[in-house]
């Protein structure tokens, strides 16, 4: 659409820009309040203040709740899910893209079911399962329901389908077995897809809340989101917004900074892993 912009176009564009500022206000307020000195109370109603910035709120937040442990748990959970997913989605994508076997359609339906009924709807029976195998309140329990991923498997299947047959056949003539073909031919070609998958998987699990909330009950295994929710509930009764926003900024900063730096890659990743 390179046409000349009419007055109507300009009016719409200005509206879009104005609404965008509204969209940004929660972020701006969050960052501004987190570096606001305690002596300048929030309750007065002014959004911004003229004083100096401080990092004292972050120090207070860090010493009020075990954010270091939460960070460690989130990193372990996110990377644990990502690494195991890489294996399951690569194998699954390869099988569905390249192999024919009895029962293929039925197994495919099993994957489709995971897309239709999200894990959140199954928390009650899944909690019972995790309880029965004695894994309640462990990081492994947080990871388990997400290691098999229909979305990721379908994404890999799409990618693998585009690999030229010739390449594969050449490798087979050279005496490679399936796993070797996968490793030497398919995975190198699928690297951009795996990278795109990694970004959306990390974002999703860094931010995941409901299942970790249910399946953890002590601070030594809780991830950031659950820890932050507990922390916020405690601080909200005192309306200590500087403390709450400092805690929130600590939780969201890594992903947000990465997003603003690598905007294109993130948007591309979210788009691809959303498309079947």
């Amino acid at each position, binding site marked *: 659409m390179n046409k000349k912009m009419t007055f109507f176009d300009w009016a719409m564009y200005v509206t879009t820009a104005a609404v965008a500022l509204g969209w940004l206000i929660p972020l701006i307020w969050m960052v501004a309040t987190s570096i606001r000195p305690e002596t300048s109370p929030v309750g007065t109603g002014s959004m911004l203040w003229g004083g100096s910035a401080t990092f004292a709120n972050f120090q207070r937040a860090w010493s009020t709740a075990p954010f270091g442990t939460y960070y460690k748990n989130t990193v372990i959970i996110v990377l644990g899910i990502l690494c195991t997913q890489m294996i399951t989605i690569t194998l699954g994508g390869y099988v569905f893209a390249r192999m024919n076997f009895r029962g293929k359609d039925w197994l495919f339906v099993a994957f489709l079911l995971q897309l239709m009924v999200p894990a959140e709807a199954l928390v009650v029976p899944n909690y019972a399962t995790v309880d029965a195998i004695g894994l309640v309140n462990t990081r492994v329990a947080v990871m388990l329901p997400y290691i098999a991923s229909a979305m990721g498997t379908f994404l890999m299947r799409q990618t693998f389908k585009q690999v030229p047959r010739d390449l594969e056949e050449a490798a087979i003539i050279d005496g490679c077995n399936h796993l070797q073909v996968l490793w030497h031919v398919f995975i190198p070609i699928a690297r951009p897809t795996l990278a795109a998958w990694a970004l959306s998987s990390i974002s999703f699990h860094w931010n995941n809340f409901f299942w970790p909330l249910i399946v953890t009950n002590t601070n030594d295994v809780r991830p950031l989101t659950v820890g932050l929710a507990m922390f916020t509930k405690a601080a909200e009764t005192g309306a200590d917004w500087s403390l709450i926003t400092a805690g929130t900024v600590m939780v969201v900063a890594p992903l947000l900074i990465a997003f603003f730096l690598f*905007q294109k890659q993130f948007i591309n990743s979210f788009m691809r892993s959303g498309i079947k």
Partner: protein
Amino acid sequence: MAQPAVKVGPAGKPVKRRAPSPGWGPYLLLLPSMILLAAFTIYPMISSGYLALFHANLANREPVWAGVENFQALFTSDLFLKSLKNTVVFAVVTIPASVLLAIWLALQLNRKVRSVSFLRAAYFYPTMLPLVSAASVWNFFYNPNYGPVNLLVRLFGGTAQNWLGDPQTALPAVMFVSIWKDAGYFMIFFLAGLQSLPSDVFEAAELDGANRWQQFWKITFPLLSPTTLFVATISFINAFKAMDQIFVMTGGGPENTTSTLLFYIWQQTFQFWDKGMGAAASVVLIVILLAVALFNQFYVDKKVHYE
């Protein structure tokens, strides 16, 4: 027994060799995924159906057969019916609102104007935030005493509200946060959809004298229908799994006006320890999700315009 070297067909000719059967290979490669899918997707669907047939609560530590009594209790429970209604309202409002907003944003931001990439980021960034922390920020914005939303309302001469404390406004306030969170995410799908549209159709329409409005409704919108269906499906699932923001913002209140189906399930199971009722409500949720997915697959999908 010795095997014949070449398989021989009825007419004495050798049978054409078929591609070698892959044997156990594919099953072995799928095994990790299948075990986990069986344990955490398929089994739970069956087991909630089974557990729903028992009284399993604090009064009955060992499950006692209940038949359909849990379901009868559900559909005569005001709280459950209210939660079901709230979930439906949530879906009916947030799906069209966020989808239309996303289309509008995509149309506005699908041009080569300066600052477009900044504006796209401004709308997309809520996707990168955990819903729980976004929700606690919105708690401040909705605060009845000093929240910016009330400041804005007063500025325009309205009366201040206790947004999250008033049964009239609590659900709309929570729904607005979901729209704010999702619109930018949905926008990127429409941007991709718009960029794949053929430009010659629009040129022809322009020659025929179609105005912008007609072009949008007669060409753009129908051509985007696969994207719209896809985005509406994600939006539908998001509405039916809405939980994080309710947990942080309202706890289901006031007067249960923000209790959703999933919130009800969580409350029955993990607050009241009534696992039988929690399982029965889970069955209702699963059935709704499956029914809509199948309806999409077999009915809507056929009506949607694909290239």
